[in-house]
């Protein structure tokens, strides 16, 4: 199996070495539980370049969230090498290098939608008028301009998740980490949010790491898809997606899309073998 753990292919913009946003080498993460330690990630090697849209896909419990949390300095690394923007994850977090979208919206119920979006800006110490302008802009970006004075529970699940995306975008991070952001939504909402996200990514050029369980979603959004194996989590394959840009939902009916999805399904099936 270990031979299959791929060292990333040569970066596309090799001329600019600083373009490595995330570098993971022989990354291992173990959890201490009451009986025996659990190995969540084993020998993970990954290289993410500026402007990439990476999807992480794999069976439940394979360590996708763990990898994302390690990049965000929410979970400590047990051994190996991990750099974010050339810094340690801790320094990167202190420099507010990334926006994180959790699986649930995690909106603070006592704040209006607008004030939820301004929260990170308040903490960063931005002036009031600036942060309100900034929040309004980002709410407009996710199509929630008219809901800024509502409270979170007055919004549907999909709208709440859009607010949390607007919040993650509010301080214009160069790196966006998303953990199954659309997991709990219906198919149609999900489609429209996928289109939204794709346009956003195209416009801003933000490096994005996106965890999902959905094959079409991964293929539709990504430049590269990282397939992980069941526990202990390892990188099984990295599938390049060279579907033309910009993409629209219609692309899902093309032969190229179907072929990629098929490829991905095969890779996933390998990862699922519990031997």
């Amino acid at each position, binding site marked *: 199996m270990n031979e299959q753990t791929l060292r990333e292919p040569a970066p596309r913009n090799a001329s600019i070495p600083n373009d490595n946003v995330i570098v993971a080498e022989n990354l291992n993460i173990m959890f201490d539980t009451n009986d025996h330690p659990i190995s969540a990630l084993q020998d993970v090697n990954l290289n993410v370049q500026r402007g990439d849209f990476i999807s992480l896909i794999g069976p439940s419990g394979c360590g996708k969230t763990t990898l994302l*949390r390690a990049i*965000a*300095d*929410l979970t400590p690394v047990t051994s190996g090498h991990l750099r974010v923007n050339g810094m340690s994850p801790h320094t990167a*977090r*202190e420099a*507010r290098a*990334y*926006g*994180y979208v*959790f699986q*649930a919206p*995690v909106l*603070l*119920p*006592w704040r*209006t939608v607008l004030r939820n979006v301004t*929260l*990170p800006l*308040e*903490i*960063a110490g931005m002036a009031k008028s600036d942060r309100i302008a900034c929040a309004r802009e980002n709410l407009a970006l996710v199509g929630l301009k008219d809901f800024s004075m*509502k*409270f979170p*529970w*007055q919004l549907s699940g999909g709208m709440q998740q859009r607010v949390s995306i607007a919040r993650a975008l509010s301080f214009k991070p160069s790196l966006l980490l998303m953990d199954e952001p659309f997991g709990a939504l219906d198919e149609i909402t999900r489609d429209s949010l996928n289109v939204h996200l794709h346009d956003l990514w195209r416009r801003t050029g933000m490096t994005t790491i996106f965890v999902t369980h959905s094959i079409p979603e991964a293929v539709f959004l990504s430049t590269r898809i990282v397939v992980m194996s069941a526990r202990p989590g390892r990188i099984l394959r990295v599938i390049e997606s060279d579907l033309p840009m910009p993409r629209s939902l219609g692309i899902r009916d093309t032969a190229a899309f179907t072929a990629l999805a098929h490829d991905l399904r095969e890779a996933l099936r390998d990862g699922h073998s519990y031997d």
Partner: protein
Amino acid sequence: MTRIFPLATVMLALIIVWYAGAYVLNAPQAINLMDPDGPHNFWAVVQAAWNMDRPVLPTPGQIATNLAASIFGNPLFSPRNFLLQTAYTAETAVTGLAGGVVLGIFLAIGIVHSRVLDRSLMPWVITSQTIPILAIAPMVVVALGNIGLTGLVPKAAIVGYLSFFPVTVGMVKGLRSPDAMQMDLMRTYNTKKMSLFVKLRWPVAMAFLFPSLRVAASLSVTGAIVAELPTGAQVGLGARLLAGSYYGQTMMMWGALVLASLLALALIGMVRLGEFWLCQQRGGRL
């Protein structure tokens, strides 16, 4: 309507039972006191039983009349005016409550932020809830009296001591109630302790603060009354209760009891008002 109607019915039943009880309990004495030449029919006995000077059980109407007489029949600053006595008790209760709440909140903040305080102090805070704290009231009054502190201070100290426990316990729980996801979110913003407190811990804890405040408000009136007992029964509703007890003045005791209850309900009402206001600020949810 489905809420008010049952409550109103039960209240009405309570008042009827009260009047009936007043008749049953007072009638034997009332008959003894009645003019032997007057009419002795049932209605006359009822009238007498409901209008005794020193009844075993006064009727609600009697208590109300008596209170009205005390409040409107005396100058405002006469010690015989129950309103003045209530004001004394309210002053003690509110001063002590304010002190206790501030102390309780600071203690909770300390416990939440310091592992040492959490491990060593918190078990004692919990244990002291199981101790009949009010029992120390006479001692506090005597001890503080000995170093020259008399009047409001020792009484407010007792009330403060009594009301800070529920606040501390509630706020420790509240300040710890942000869930793991919310904490992670704040961590991704590289939030410092101070911001974390202002933006997350404190607002989350509000849902716990108000129930604690209600308990503390109710305790503060009890505390104020008990604190007034050992001061040689000078001022306040507690003193009225004690004096009524000494001189067998039933109406005085009932009047003090009713006003103390109203005071407690008023304080709780004020807490509710604050809760309602904050709720409005947050769009209808706390």
